[in-house]
């Protein structure tokens, strides 16, 4: 459980980091909560490791009217304490344990693109994006929408030489409630299944409703359940029907902890609970 040899780089600014990445194409080390175990178990054997923890300016979390921008070295714990976005805050409480959240980063979790992780689903259900940068004689950036960012399990749409520098989580519209529910074998474990939901209530009626599930497909599965529930008051909407849509979209598989059938069942149960919770919160927010 010791990593194979690698060259270690610790750039001090973004330009240096991107030039190093352009040159060596190594793995990026941020919080290290996934990468270090993979190195120790020799599941990953990169020749170069580019540690971005000393890169100035990546540790910023900015709030605007449009949403929240989280820098690449912002820790889960800092983002959680900032309480900058209700759904993000909820999701962060479900990420592993406090010790891991103290080191792990929000952007690192997105760039790891584990389909069982919470944060990719949050970015996806909110329609946010990840900003990636590369060296092109200067710092060149592009924004990758969530829908295109999670290309497959552990496959983010980051090209060799690129660095994910921040993530943008759009703010919830007025009258919007959110929820994130999951079931894990042990507190803090990766979920057997999880569902986050965002519901907007306008004029006493459900205007939009979306859900995303984790752990039941190669990438976070986002489902617009509007057809089953919009236009009705939250108390009368067909949440069971909406949950059924989510369940149909899920592609669970068997593993040693749970069967695909059980996971699919859980998606249905959790989706209905999450949608109801989100709708209730949305209605209350509008009323308040």
């Amino acid at each position, binding site marked *: 459980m010791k*990593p*194979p040899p690698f060259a270690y780089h610790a750039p001090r600014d973004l330009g240096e980091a991107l030039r190093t990445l352009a040159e060596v194409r190594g793995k990026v080390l941020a919080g290290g909560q996934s990468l270090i175990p993979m190195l120790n178990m020799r599941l990953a054997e990169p020749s170069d490791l580019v540690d971005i923890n000393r890169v100035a300016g990546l540790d910023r979390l900015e709030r605007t009217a449009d949403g929240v921008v989280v820098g690449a070295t912002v820790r889960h714990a800092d983002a959680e304490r900032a309480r900058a976005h209700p759904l993000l805050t909820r999701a962060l409480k479900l990420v592993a344990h406090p010790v891991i959240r103290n080191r792990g980063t929000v952007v690192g979790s997105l760039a790891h693109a584990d389909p069982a992780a919470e944060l990719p689903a949050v970015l996806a259900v909110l329609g946010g994006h990840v900003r990636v940068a590369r060296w092109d004689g200067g710092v060149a950036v592009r924004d990758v929408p969530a829908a295109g960012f999670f290309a497959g399990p552990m496959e983010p749409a980051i090209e060799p030489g690129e660095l994910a520098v921040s993530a943008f989580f759009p703010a919830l519209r007025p009258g919007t409630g959110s929820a994130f529910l999951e079931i894990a074998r042990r507190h803090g474990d990766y979920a*057997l299944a999880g569902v986050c939901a965002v519901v907007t209530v306008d004029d006493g009626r459900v205007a939009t409703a979306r859900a995303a599930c984790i752990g039941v497909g190669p990438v976070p599965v986002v489902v617009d359940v509007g057809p089953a529930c919009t236009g009705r008051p939250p108390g009368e909407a067909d949440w069971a029907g909406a949950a059924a849509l989510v369940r149909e979209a899920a592609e669970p598989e068997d593993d*040693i*902890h749970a069967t695909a059938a059980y996971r699919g069942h859980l998606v249905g149960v959790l989706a209905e609970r999450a949608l109801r919770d989100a709708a209730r919160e949305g209605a209350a927010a509008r009323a308040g």
Partner: protein
Amino acid sequence: MTTKLFGEPVQRREDHRLLTGGGRYVDDLGRDALAAAFVRSPHAHARIRDIDVTAALDVEGLVAIYTWDDLPERVGRPLPLLIPHPALTHGRTALPLARDVVRHVGEPVVMVVATDRYAAEDVCARIEVDYEPLKPVVGPEQAVSGVHLVHDDVPGNVGAHLVQEVPGPDGRGAREAIETAPHTLSFRLDIERSAATPLEGRGVYARWDGRDLRVYSSTQTSTSVRMAVSAVLGVPLPQVEVIAPDVGGGFGVKIVHPWPEEILVPWAAMTLGREVKWTEDRREHFVASAHERGQVQHVRVGFDDDGRLLGLDVTILHDHGAYTPYGIIVPIVTSTQLLGPYKVGAYRVEFSSLYTNTVQVTPYRGAGRPQGVFCMERTMDKIARRLGKDRAEVRAANFIQPEDFPYDQGMTFQDGRPLIYDSGDYPRMLRMLKELIGWDDFERAPGRGIGIGCYVEGTGPGPYEGGHVQITSDGQVHVSTGLTSQGQGHETAFAQIAATELGVPIERVSVVTGDTRRLGYAVGTFASRAAVVSGNAIALACRKVREKALRVAADALEADPADLEITEGVVHVAGAPQASMPLSTVAVLANPLRYAFDEETARATQFAGAADPNRPPVAEGDEPGLEGREFYSPIRCTFAAGMHAAIVETDPDTAEIRIVRYAVVHDCGNLINPMIVEGQIHGGVAQGVGGALYERMVYDEHGQLVNASFMDFLMPYATEVPHVETAHLQTPSPLNPLGIKGAGEAGVIPVSAVVASALEDAEGIPIDRMPISPSELFHLRTSGR
């Protein structure tokens, strides 16, 4: 007045050190030692065709690479079979390094020594072993089919087969009694594999100075490792020291010895003339140490209208993995301790202990009892359900009564001695438990159930342990015992015994365990035996020292020893406190000196005038110093008991299972320290919850352990372990001077049975296997009704 420390909830004296990073574990020692690492088999069963090390030779830091061919004859022999048994007709143990065949994933094939562990692992990664895969045998049922063999010379994969029969009071055998019983049931039970998984894995560090060999090992028995190392390496015993420093948990796995690494690391240190250390990593621990639990049981039972057992017939398939270094202790314990606190009428138990291409099975806390208790307690619940009776009532109808002790179960126990229970009060214990959990007032509801489980545990087996006590001239009391500590609180509990016996403040008592330099004769820490066997040995040693202290002080005070008492470390005449002498002075006087090194010791020198010039300074038959060594050798085990109850709630939609209350009534005889006993119970229950709801070793059909990490092997976190409510009953053991029984394994034993009982009550579905996950409960709900 001296406080009576025996029986008091004294805070653990070792905790501050252990919790603030002050522990000295094997890996904290030998910072400059070379590091060892192992190439281990990736196959469950394969023939080794070739080992090619060429690509590894230019790795910087490489010191040595060893295969079986490099080992001297005496080092390359099969490891010892520690506990032979006549029924173990086909016992097999591993070679320190595999020679031609590997029989489980994780079996060591090549040893690498390098300047550090990083380099050693780099070397391992470049060594190429060419394997010819053979058919693996996975699981006891595949083993018993005998189609493929783990060992070519073990037909049917059967290592041992043992039938034990105890006729009923009317002389009839179990099968006959069951045939004619008013009611009968037969069913099958499945228990998964789990493992001890201590926080610290194994570790060995050795140094050789050309004459003397010192070995540090994270072991539960330093004395026996010492004897094994001496014998295998051919170093005379007096030149071998083995030390168990702080050990980060054992739970049974570290009683196995000598591990291949415990032989190879000292051998490499001697061969290279360098210090060598090996620290097991977690992945190695999962695949290269030991597991336990896995059994399939077929049960037939006959009983009367009151639920009284008339005959019980149990057939067990026990999966003991690839090798049997620890003999058949686990299935023997299962088959004997299955009987619990009950009179079972006629009993027949048969087990086949079977080879599979998986990690070997050796005792893990509970050591076969959780499986036996699961069997008996599931049986009790099924009887109650069949008869429509209260489950506690059916148990009570079968209890051994207080007046029945000593009660002979008619079997041979794991120590080779008769299974005779020494004392207990099971009806009272049940009353206490029912009150603690509120059994009679429990409000049953869908998804809410209550369960119960009872057990008896034979604790404190021999052959012996020793205690050594020395009072030095500063008045400090130095206690040592040869068995080892893995976090049990021995520094506290043994100090309480010594302080109480000697009449000294506990602050003056220090305790050393597991150091063969201090006490060379010992057996080890396992089978809930440390308090019973070492505790009594220390008490006896203290009594011997006390007697001498009184004799020496009586001479100096011109008093009769019978009139003397020791209070707060001062010897005084009873009723006349002014005629007194501190133990420090007594220690000085007990050791006639030629040389003084302070004012205190000057009193014992030859011109100080204290001694009678007409007698030798040390009387014939006496020894200098205030020191004593005694051994305690129990005639047989003393039997502790416990009863647990739990309330469980299940989610109707998600099938999640939550233990909302957990209650324990426990009897380990006289309590040395109730706080430590409760801590032991809490830890045991936590491991029991793991076995009941979370932990399993998942082998695929190829014999790969697919969850060899704490990410996928679900040891419960603190968040999964319920608060444990505890009450004590104290039925002293008549077998030992302190009247104590063991408590180390207690908490874990009935938990699976209790959780199954409660879950069955909540769900109305038979629960015949452990562990059970929400996913499995979901499927039982949809198909199992």
